[in-house]
């Protein structure tokens, strides 16, 4: 085992998969010469050359759509969007092309591509700070992953690159510097669609997504000291979504809180709530609680941002309310 950062996990996944498979290409704004604005891809152009790692013009429609064209003709493109918010400039390319090209042609093509989407509020305001996973959970044909640890950052990205479907890979900006252990196995893969039980417990189920996971772990520690052993589930992958992991946990705990950085309305928690209504209502002895962004754009000033962002205290209070 080694200790690496989340950012290193992403970079190692890219390096290893590019060495393993010559059809993997990597491109986006500022990724090649400069190494990406978050410095994830530095040195990759030197190793893999200008054809496989290159900078693009500011043309998200062209270069995200080009990933679809490349994928259906034999490449495995990995596209870096500078910010996850830029997905909204590429609605047609992501939703109608990447998500549907295979379906609309009756399965004639595979669309193996990954779009790396740096997500999360970090003092950068409404157009550079969103966690927009839920918007794309509504779109058929896409795979969606949101790793929370360095090991998952690496293992899920490697799986995403090897997957034959389009994958939106959400990497949270505030997790880049976090550290964690990772096995040395070069084929260390984390399967899409498998949740991680971060901590076992039977008092309450706390589902946490992406940067909410470390906050949830702190809440679990705090509650343990108060005599409540809660279960923390990190779905890791939002499509496919590991429904059984959540349902099994709720059967045990009867209580659930969902913590996410998406907007509350029709967010991930809303989907989990609806799923539980349909499939596990009899096991719930308290109503579901969601800790999410209120439905306002993410403001820039620190005081305002902190006011709307889900945090440890808000998650703790939601849990406490159900445990009382």
């Amino acid at each position, binding site marked *: 085992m080694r200790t690496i950062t989340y950012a290193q996990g992403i970079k190692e996944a890219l390096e290893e998969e590019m060495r393993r498979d010559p059809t993997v290409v990597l491109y986006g704004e500022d990724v090649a010469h400069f190494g990406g604005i978050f410095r994830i891809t530095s040195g990759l152009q030197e190793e893999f050359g200008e*054809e496989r790692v290159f900078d693009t013009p500011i043309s998200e429609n062209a270069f995200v*759509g080009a990933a679809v*064209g490349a*994928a259906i003709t034999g490449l495995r493109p990995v596209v870096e969007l500078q910010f996850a918010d830029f997905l909204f400039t590429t609605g*047609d390319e992501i939703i109608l092309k990447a998500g549907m*090209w295979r*379906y609309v042609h*009756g399965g*004639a093509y595979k669309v193996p591509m990954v779009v790396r989407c740096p997500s999360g509020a970090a003092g950068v305001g409404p157009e550079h700070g969103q966690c927009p996973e839920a918007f794309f959970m509504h779109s058929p044909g896409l795979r969606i992953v949101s790793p929370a640890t360095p090991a998952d950052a690496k293992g899920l990205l490697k799986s995403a690159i090897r997957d034959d479907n389009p994958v939106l890979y959400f990497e949270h900006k505030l997790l880049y510097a976090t550290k964690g252990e990772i096995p040395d196995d070069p084929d260390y893969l984390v399967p899409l669609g498998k949740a991680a039980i971060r901590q076992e417990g039977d008092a309450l189920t706390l589902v946490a997504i992406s940067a909410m996971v470390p906050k949830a772990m702190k809440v679990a520690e705090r509650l343990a000291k108060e005599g409540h052993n809660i279960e923390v589930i990190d779905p890791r992958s939002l499509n496919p979504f590991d429904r059984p992991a959540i349902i099994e946990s709720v059967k045990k705990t009867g209580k659930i809180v969902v913590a996410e950085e998406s907007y509350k309305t029709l967010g991930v928690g809303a989907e989990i709530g609806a799923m539980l209504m349909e499939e596990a209502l009899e096991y719930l002895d308290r109503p579901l609680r969601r800790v999410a962004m209120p439905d306002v754009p993410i403001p820039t000033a620190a005081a305002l941002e902190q006011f709307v962002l889900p945090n440890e205290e808000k998650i703790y209070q939601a849990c406490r309310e159900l445990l009382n």
Partner: protein
Amino acid sequence: MDKKLKLDIYKKIVLSRRLEERIAELIKAGQVGGFMHPGVGQEALQVAAIATLRSDDYMLYAHRGVAYWVARGIPIQSVLCDLSGREGGTNRGKGGVMHVVSPELGVLGESGTLGGCFPIAAGAGMSIKVKHEDKVVLCFFGDGTSNRGTFHESLNFCAVRKLPVVFLCENNGWAVSVPTEQSTSVKDIADRRHGYGVPGKTFDGNDVEQVYDAVSEAVAHARAGNGPSLLEGKTYRLWGHWIGDPDTYRTREEVEKHWRRDPLPAYELKLMEEKVLTDAARAEIDKDARAQIDRAIAFMEKQPFMKGETALEDLYA
């Protein structure tokens, strides 16, 4: 262009025209549903352009008609099954006649949202370049679609990366009900090449030889690794935007004027003058086209409709 090629192009134009006439009859009689945008009047441009391709090249077609598929050799019975939602089509009931596909013939598809084709074409070009192949991508689009942002982004992207893509505009003068001069800042779409530093030209899209020569030149340019081109063939949509379009936005005089420039009889006359085609051969080709269509319709009618539950298949690999 040798005699064999000229006759091949002629036969495909005839087959396309006869097929669309039959499809229109079927739709009007309520025998098939279908969301069909006819290409009558634009077949010369489509067929002659596709004739310049090698069998391993890629193409993305546009909304107008069946000639792209006929030209590339997709069986017309499959097209009819796609149109009617039956088994035996190319897309298993998912895309209808708007998304006929053939990976083995390099027919990548089309974007139902206009302009979605350009980035896909760029990506196929990227693939060719990364794999050091000498294939090319031919991307058809309409004059109206040249106003999408994707057109401008993709031309620039392909030019910067020198990708082997030939962008071919079928300028038929109308974007549904809006004439080109009301929507577009230039008279000739190919003039937009100057904004991207790529070669190209405007030509008569109803003249088979002009089309063939211009597209051949652009294909050779791309194949040699010199990057994209922007071509424009002037043509005209002789029928409505869709089968059933009341077509109230054009004057009958205008449409009549363009029927006199219909590329099918024009090419026929030219080939007769060149002694490539005789009256007897012309009658034979027409009869053969009708017989192929009869057989294809008979095949289609015997095919079962796609089952509803197949709607849940083919989403993920």
